[in-house]
C-alpha cells in the first residue's frame, strides 16, 4: 500500500512538473508582451526595454524558466504583472472558493448520481427510460448555458437567488445566521449548475456498471441464499458496481475543474478559474503559471485520493499490488 502511494506520488509530482514546464514554454512561444501591456502604447522604446528588464523578460527563456522554477519551489511566486499584488496572496485567497465549490458539487453529484443510477438499474421499465432521457440530457448540457438558464429563471424571473459573486455587498455587516444564509444563497446557483451536469454522467455510469454486475455469479448465489431483493441490490450489486465508479471519480476531476472555470466565469465566483481567465487575458505570466501549477496539483491530489479510495473499497486492488499486471 505504502509503496503504491509512494510510486503514485512520484508520478503525480512528475505530472505537475511536466504541466508547468509545458505551460511555461507555451506561454513564452505565444505572441503578446506583458511589458507592452504594462507601459501602454504611447511608451518609448527605452521605457519598454527598461520594463522588460525589470520583469526579467530580456533573458533567454531557459534561464527565465530556471529562475522561475527555483523561486516557485521555494514559495516565491512573484507579483502579478497586471495588479502588482503578490501572486501567492491572490491564489491563497482564491483556492478555498474553488475547492469548496468543486468539492461540494462532487459529493452532491455522486450521491444523487448513484441514487438515480441505482434506481434505474433496479427498477427498469418506464422509469428507467424516463430517467435515462433526463441523465443523457444533463450529460449533454454545457455548464455555462445551464448556468445562464438558471440565472434567467431564478434571478431574473423569480428574483429569488443572486447570480454573481460569493457574498452580497452588505456581507461585512451581516453576522451569524444571516451571514451563513447570504453565503448559501450565493452558492446555490453555481453549485446547482455544476452538480446537475455531474449527476447525468454519474447516473449513466452507475446504471451501466450495476447492470454488468447484476449478472455476475456471486449475485445469483446471493439470490439463491434467499436474500431479499433490496439486500441483493445494496450489498452485492451496488457495492461491487461502485468500484469502477470510484475510478471514474478520479478521472472526472480534471473535467470538473475545467467545468468550474466556465462556471466561475459566469457567476463571477472568486476562485482560481476566474483568476486564470483574467490573467490569460492580461498576459499576466506569474499568475498564469501559479494558477496552472495549483490546478494541476489539485487534480493530481484528487486522483491520488480516488486511487486510495478504490484500494480501500476493493480488496483485490490491495492484494494484487505487488504484481505488475494490474492496470
Amino acid at each position, binding site marked *: 500500500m505504502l509503496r503504491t502511494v509512494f510510486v503514485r506520488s512520484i508520478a503525480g509530482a512528475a505530472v505537475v512538473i511536466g504541466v508547468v514546464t509545458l505551460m511555461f514554454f507555451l506561454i513564452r512561444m505565444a*505572441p503578446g508582451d506583458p511589458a507592452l501591456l504594462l507601459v501602454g502604447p504611447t511608451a518609448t522604446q527605452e521605457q519598454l526595454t527598461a520594463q522588460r528588464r525589470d520583469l526579467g523578460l530580456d533573458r533567454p527563456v531557459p534561464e527565465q524558466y530556471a529562475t522561475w522554477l527555483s523561486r516557485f519551489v521555494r514559495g516565491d511566486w512573484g507579483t502579478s504583472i497586471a495588479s502588482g499584488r503578490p501572486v501567492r496572496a491572490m491564489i491563497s485567497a482564491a483556492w478555498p472558493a474553488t475547492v469548496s465549490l468543486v468539492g461540494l458539487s462532487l459529493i452532491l453529484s455522486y450521491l444523487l448520481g448513484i441514487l438515480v443510477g441505482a434506481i434505474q438499474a433496479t427498477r427498469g421499465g418506464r422509469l428507467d427510460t424516463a430517467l435515462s432521457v433526463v441523465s443523457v440530457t444533463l450529460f*449533454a448540457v*454545457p455548464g*455555462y448555458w445551464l448556468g*445562464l438558464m438558471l440565472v*434567467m429563471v431564478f434571478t431574473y424571473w423569480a428574483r429569488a437567488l443572486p447570480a454573481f459573486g460569493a457574498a452580497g455587498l452588505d456581507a461585512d455587516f451581516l453576522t451569524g445566521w444571516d451571514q451563513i444564509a447570504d453565503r448559501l444563497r450565493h452558492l446555490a446557483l453555481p453549485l446547482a449548475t455544476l452538480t446537475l451536469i455531474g449527476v447525468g454522467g454519474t447516473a449513466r455510469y452507475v446504471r451501466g456498471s450495476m447492470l454488468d454486475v447484476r449478472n455476475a455469479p456471486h449475485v445469483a448465489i446471493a439470490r439463491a441464499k434467499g436474500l431479499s431483493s433490496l439486500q441483493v441490490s445494496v450489498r452485492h450489486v451496488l457495492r461491487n458496481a461502485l468500484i469502477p465508479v470510484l475510478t471514474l471519480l478520479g478521472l472526472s476531476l*480534471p473535467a470538473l475543474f475545467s467545468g468550474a472555470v466556465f462556471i466561475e466565469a459566469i457567476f463571477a465566483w472568486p476562485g482560481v478559474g476566474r483568476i486564470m481567465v483574467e490573467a490569460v487575458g492580461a498576459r499576466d505570466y506569474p499568475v498564469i503559471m501559479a494558477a496552472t501549477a495549483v490546478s494541476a496539483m489539485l487534480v493530481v491530489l484528487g486522483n491520488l485520493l480516488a486511487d486510495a479510495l478504490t484500494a480501500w473499497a476493493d480488496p483485490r486492488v490491495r492484494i494484487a499490488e505487488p504484481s505488475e499486471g494490474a492496470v
Partner: protein
Amino acid sequence: MGVGTLLQDTRARFGLAVLAMAAIFAVIAPLVAVDPSVQRDIVATRFLAPFTTDLHGTFHLLGTDRFGRDVWARLVFGARVSLSVGVLAVLLSVVIGLAIGAAAGFWQGRVGVLLLGLTDFALALPRVVLLLLLASLWQPSAALVIIVLGLTGWMTIARLVHSEVRALAARPFVESAVALGVKGPRVLVRHILPNALTPVIVAAALGVGNAIMLEAGLSFLGLGVQPPTPSWGNLIASGRDTLVNAPWVATAPGVALVLVVVAATLLGDAVRDRLDPAGKRVSG
C-alpha cells in the same frame, strides 16, 4: 453489424435523425434562411419575439437579436461552423490517436512504454486550462480551435487503439500473416488496424459531441470563433446580456447544442451496445 440492426434501436434512430437534420440544415443554410451577414434595417427589427413578422414582412421563426439579425438564420449558419469544427477536431484526434496507439501497441518495447507514458501524461493535463491558454495566447480563430481540440483530445482513442492492437497482435490470423512473410508495419496497417477500428468509431461519435460543446465553450468565453461569424457558442454569449428582454437569443442555440450532443451520445451508446455483445446493456 448491419445498419438495419442498428436502426432497431430507438436511441440510434433518434441520434441519426437529429444529426442528419442538423447536417442537412447546415448544408442548405442559404436555402432556408437569409445570410445573416447581409443586414438591411437594424432599428426596426431589433429584439422581435419568436413567430413575429417585421415591418418589411419578413417572418422571424426564432425572433431577432439586438442587431435585428434573425436568430434562426444565425443558428443554421452557425451550425455550419460548429458542426464542421467539431467533426474536423475529432478527425485530427483520431489520426493522432490511431498513430500513437497503434505504434504503442505494436512495438511493445521501449517505444510502447514511452508512447503510453506520453498518453498518460497528456491525459493528466487539465484540458480546459490548456485550451484557455492556447486559444487566448494566439489569435483566436476556427482553425486554432480545431487544432487545439484535436491536440488535446487524442488520448482516449490512443488508449483504445493500443489495447485493441495488443490483443489482436496475439491472434492466430496475425501470427499466420507474419509466418507467411508479411513484414512489420504492413502487418499493422493491413491486418491489425482494420480490425481495431470499431471502438474508434464509437469513441469518435462520442467525441464529436464533446468537441462541439468545447468549441461552444471557448467561443462563449470569446476565445474561439470570432463574431460576426456565428457559432453556437458565440450565439449563446451574445444572448447573455439580453437574457432579461430577449431570452430567446441565448435559449435557441443552447437547445440546438444540447440536441446535437444528446444525439451524438445516444448514437455512440447504441453503436457500442451493438458492437460489444460482452458488455451488452439493457437499452434504455
